[in-house]
């Protein structure tokens, strides 16, 4: 184990895989000499050269679209969409090409590609650079969606995403990039589709991912002071979603709070609530609660943005309403 930041973790995951397989390359805006908008790719250009770490024009459509063709032709591209907010610009390439090609071709194509992107508010980046749009993606069969919360998961999930033979959207949270933690050295893989219990508890299950894991953990700590034992489950991969971990936890706790930074309506929290209502209704002894952003764009003002974001306090309040 070694101390690493989240961004160092994800970069270590990329480096180790790139060293092993020359078919892996990275392309995107400013990923080369500049080192990535938030330093995610710093040093990779120097290590792997311009043939494998490739600066592209500001052309999100062909960044993702070319990856589809390159993957179908045998490479393993990692491409970057600088902010998930720009995903509308390349949505056809994700929705109708990457996600559909294997199925439409009767299983005769393989698309091992990773789309790295960043999400998240809290840095004053306003409405077009702060969103959490994972639910846009989990609604599309054919792609996988990953949202790590810790440096170790950032590394292990990156390795798994690169090794996977499907299109994987790997969503980094801007607010977590400098977050430090213990990370295993050398090769380390966190399997896709497997949740992690970030804190064990017996009275209430809190499902949270990405930056919200840390709010949920802080809330769990505060709740413990008041005698409520909260279990925090981080699905880590949103598609495929590890529903068994959630249902198993509910067998213990009987109460579910879902926390996400995305806006409420149409968010993945609604889907998880429906899934539990379908398959775990008998396990529940209280209505399911969701703690999410409100249904509005991300505001610029620091004061408004702080109120926009789900927080430890809002989670504590939601949990206490259940008791």
């Amino acid at each position, binding site marked *: 184990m070694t101390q690493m930041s989240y961004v160092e973790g994800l970069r270590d995951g990329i480096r180790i895989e790139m060293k092993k397989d020359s078919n892996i*390359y990275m392309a995107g805006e400013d990923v080369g000499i500049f080192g990535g908008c938030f330093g995610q790719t710093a040093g990779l250009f120097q290590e792997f050269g311009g*043939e494998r770490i*490739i600066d*592209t*024009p500001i*052309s999100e*459509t*062909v960044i*993702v*679209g*070319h*990856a*589809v*063709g*390159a*993957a*179908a*032709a*045998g*490479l393993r*591209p990692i491409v970057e969409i600088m902010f998930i907010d720009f995903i509308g610009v390349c949505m*056809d*390439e994700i929705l*109708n*090409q990457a996600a559909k*090609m*294997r*199925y*439409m*071709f*009767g*299983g*005769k*194509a*393989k*698309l*091992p590609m990773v789309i790295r992107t960043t999400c998240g508010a809290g840095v004053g980046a306003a409405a077009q650079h702060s969103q959490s749009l994972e639910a846009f993606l989990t609604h599309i*069969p*054919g792609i*996988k969606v990953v949202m790590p919360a810790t440096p170790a998961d950032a590394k292990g999930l990156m390795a798994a995403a690169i090794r*996977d*033979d*499907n299109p994987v959207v790997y969503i980094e949270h801007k607010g977590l990039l400098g977050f430090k933690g213990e990370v295993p050295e050398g090769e380390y893989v966190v399997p896709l589709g497997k949740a992690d219990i970030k804190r064990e508890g017996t009275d209430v299950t809190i499902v949270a991912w990405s930056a919200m894991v840390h709010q949920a953990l802080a809330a769990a700590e505060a709740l413990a002071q008041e005698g409520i034992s909260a279990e925090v489950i981080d699905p880590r991969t949103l598609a495929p979603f590890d529903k068994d971990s959630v249902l198993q936890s509910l067998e213990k706790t009987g109460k579910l709070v879902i926390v996400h930074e995305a806006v409420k309506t149409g968010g993945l929290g609604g889907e998880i609530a429906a899934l539990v209502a379908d398959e775990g209704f008998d396990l529940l002894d209280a209505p399911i609660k969701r703690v999410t952003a409100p249904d509005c764009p991300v505001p610029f003002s620091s004061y408004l943005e702080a109120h926009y974001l789900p927080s430890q306090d809002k989670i504590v309040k939601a949990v206490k309403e259940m008791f």
Partner: protein
Amino acid sequence: MEITKEKLLSFYETMLTIRYFEEKAVELFAAGQIPGFVHLYIGEEAVATGACANLTDKDYITSTHRGHGHLIAKGGKLDLMMAELFGKASGYCKGKGGSMHIADVNLGILGANGIVGAGQPIATGAAFACKYKKTDAVSVCFFGDGASNRGTFHESLNMASIFKLPAVYICENNMYGISNNQKNHMNINDISDRAAAYGMPGMTIDGNDVIAVYEAVKEAVKRARKGDGPSLIECKTWRHRGHFEGDPGVYKDPKEQETWVKKDPIIKLEEKLLEHKVVTKEEIAHLQEEAHGKIEAAVEFAKNSKDPSLDELLTDVYAG
């Protein structure tokens, strides 16, 4: 003529096969035996035929919603294609893709595509892979005049140009984006003019002359294989039928239609072959009979095939 007799005959056979495949598709569609949408290439066969005659199985193509011609010209198997049109389990895509999504990755066919202009980035990516892997393979992108107005066109040609990718962008200008005449959807006559904006060679040729297409694409492919980068070739052509089967084409001037039908690429080649005594009338009749036979066999194969089993609904969503 510099082109060998074998090559000329293979052009003729390929064009006939495409034509008969589609004429049969019209018949089966009208009889309700083929579901969905059918977009026909009739009248444009010279483009795919002349272009793909320069390619091997290692080279890639991307096609369009009007894809039967590209697939046949690139070596797609008629029985598997026809079975796919029927939605049968034995089809290219196990019946899960249909006319607009036929692919054969082993032959370098990265798919017909239901989204106008979507093949351009994919072809660009395949060209990237060819260069990255240091092979001398190339990637040929077929698209129409309508697709040349998509943002994908701009982004793809720009990327291919700056990365010097081995790509050939072939615009099949049939003068209409569905019902919209070129005069109404762009302010230039020759789409190849746009090549200048990307610093790549651009040329406009007669897309109904298979030899002209073959020669032009030959040069572009040679340039791409040498590592000199992409080209844009505009082939002026005409679809004889509607945008899709069922479209009566009221937006077309009947006189113009008549003029173009007279320029039918198959008839043009046939006349040339006879004029230069490459073939006799009897040989032509024999080739036609043979092509019909291949199509009938493909239809027979498709009709005798089974529907996909229900468990196929949920397979192939993900690999592994």
